[in-house]
């Protein structure tokens, strides 16, 4: 039984690898080129949105394809961020110690090591949660991941390396000399963010359109039938969670690159719920929708701030940081009640709606 939350109707047939890479490369180039049209602050917002997009893409894939809801994807992002920051700092220090900090190697090595660190940290946490996800159904997994978000400050306070509420700082990635004349640091960071995010999202596209995606949908639709077809539902669910966690981890790495800072406060319950909002608004299961959702949760708070800035101080103070949350809440409810497919379904038109009522027959 699947309901509103699936959008398997949107799944394309398996895309050949070369076409997929071509398409991904093209989109990435477009995005990179697009940064020239934006001012530094917009590029900073773009980089942030890209990081959030990576995490939301992972989340939407998880929810849309396997029906498992994680309320704790912010923690997976935080894991990626900490993994990035700690590893990159360590490598940067080592390079500085050996006098090799200059040049392209000095720039790229900490970055790459940091990304590996992010993948290892978020992957490890993803495996742990995936083991739980393999055995748990909806409300249990949602509750467990919620407890995880609430416990994040405790974890940061308990593990010395994470430096408590202060958090850890990530090394600044300067613009390479060759590009310094051409682009500002914000644009450079936006480039890094776009590249990292495309590395996070492209595998998800391949996963979704390939056999793994098929298995996930099979498990989601009817676990018993999937089992009879020789699919191990536990392994599929755990695998989906790990894939989702890795994408979220890369998203965390992006935010660490952009903000040079990882702290538990930035990855609290509110942010975690925003990721859910972005996934729901974009349409659960839709990666394109995830991009739209990510941009929305990045831009709306800023827009609301702009709007409330003009209000009297007391009123503005009350609305600040709250009005957009309330708006997001309303949007989520309205989307779930009226258009469970989110924006993705809205864009594709009405014909897709029929899949909601007939998808038990698939």
């Amino acid at each position, binding site marked *: *039984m*699947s*309901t*509103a*939350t699936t959008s398997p109707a949107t799944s394309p047939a398996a895309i050949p690898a070369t076409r997929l890479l071509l398409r991904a490369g093209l989109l990435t180039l477009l995005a990179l080129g697009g940064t020239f049209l934006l001012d530094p602050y917009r590029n900073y917002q773009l980089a942030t949105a890209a990081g959030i997009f990576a995490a939301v893409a992972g989340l939407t894939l998880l*929810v849309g394809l396997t*029906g498992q*809801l994680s*309320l704790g994807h912010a923690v997976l992002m935080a894991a990626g961020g900490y993994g990035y920051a700690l590893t990159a700092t360590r490598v940067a220090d080592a390079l500085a110690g050996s006098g090799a900090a200059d040049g392209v190697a000095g720039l790229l090595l900490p970055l790459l090591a940091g990304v590996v660190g992010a993948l290892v940290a978020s992957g490890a946490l993803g495996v742990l949660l995936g*083991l*739980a996800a393999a*055995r*748990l*159904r*909806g*409300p*249990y997994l*949602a*509750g*467990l991941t*919620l*407890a*995880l978000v*609430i*416990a994040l*400050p*405790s*974890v940061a*306070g*308990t593990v010395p390396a994470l430096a408590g509420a202060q958090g850890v700082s990530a090394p600044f990635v300067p613009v390479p000399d060759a590009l310094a004349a051409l682009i500002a640091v914000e644009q450079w960071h936006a480039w890094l963010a776009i590249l990292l995010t495309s590395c996070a999202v492209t595998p998800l596209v391949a996963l979704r359109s390939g056999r793994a995606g098929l298995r996930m949908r099979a498990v989601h639709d009817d676990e018993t039938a999937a089992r009879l077809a020789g699919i191990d539902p536990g392994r599929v669910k755990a695998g989906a969670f790990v894939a989702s966690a890795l994408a979220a981890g890369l998203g965390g790495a992006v935010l660490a690159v952009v903000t040079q800072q990882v702290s538990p406060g930035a990855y609290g*319950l509110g942010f975690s*719920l925003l990721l*859910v*909002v972005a996934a*729901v608004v974009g349409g659960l299961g839709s990666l394109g929708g995830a991009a739209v959702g990510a941009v929305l949760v990045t831009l709306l708070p800023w827009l609301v701030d702009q709007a409330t800035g003009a209000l009297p101080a007391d009123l503005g103070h*009350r*609305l600040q*940081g*709250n*009005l957009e*949350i*309330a708006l*997001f*809440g*309303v*949007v*989520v*409810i309205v989307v*779930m*009640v009226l258009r*469970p497919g989110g924006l993705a379904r809205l864009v594709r038109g009405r014909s897709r709606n029929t899949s909601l009522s007939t998808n038990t027959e698939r």
Partner: protein
Amino acid sequence: MERLVFLLSTGLARGAVLALFALSLVIVYRAARAVNFAQAAMAVVPVYVALAVTSAGGSFWLGLAVALAVGALLGAVVERGLLRLVPQETPLPGIIVAVGLVMVLQAGLAMVFGPDHRPVHAPFSQRPFDVGGVSVLSPYDLFVLVVAAVVMGGLALLFSRTSLGLRLRAAAFAPETSRLLGVRVPRMVTLGWMLSSATAALAALLLVPTGLGLDPHAADVLFVNAFAAAVVGGLDSPVGALVAGLAVGVLVTLVTGYASAAAAPLAVLVLLTAVLLVRPHGLFATREARTA
């Protein structure tokens, strides 16, 4: 030793609040086969109303009564006005709507009442009694324990001894059969939500004077701890919620007392993970929980 006695007795009082909140989760789970992830935000709203009543000159007891009524009303509105509108076959749509509701309620409260903590005074002293040189419960702790016991006893009587309770249980267990016996199942589901959110409001009201004060997130940690307790207890079992609620309350108090307050959520997380991995259907569930 003295410290242990003090912590154990305080832990029981904290646990009583937790057990009440866990019980509210169990009630709504039994009525609607759903975990209400908006329970914390919904429980805080009546507390704000109660605070408004008392600060406008009303007595604590009037505030309490108003809070219960507002809690019940909110439960009915949320169930009829929101959750009934989304598909119920899988838990996901309901959980996501609850997430949206949490955002609306918490941000709404912060906008209306301001985001700051508001101090809430207990109706009784919070200074512990001194029994033979050992500090134990405070009068307020005793009050909490008594209220929790009375409410839980009342709910137990309602469910096991009255015909309304019989219909509530039947509607939860076997909706179709109940309809065939003339039970208005949708009404029973709404009543379950009302009972649940009134109970949660009471728990939040009892909790707030012991914490930092009232803010829109005042019950968030209570929800997570109570969820852990309800899961340990089996989600379906009121007795399980009671026992596990007390146990989690004592655990949290001990960890806070001997390690640090910051370590308490970690302890709850570890407990929840362990129970979910070893016995996903809880320690008290008599039979396999239905597929949720």
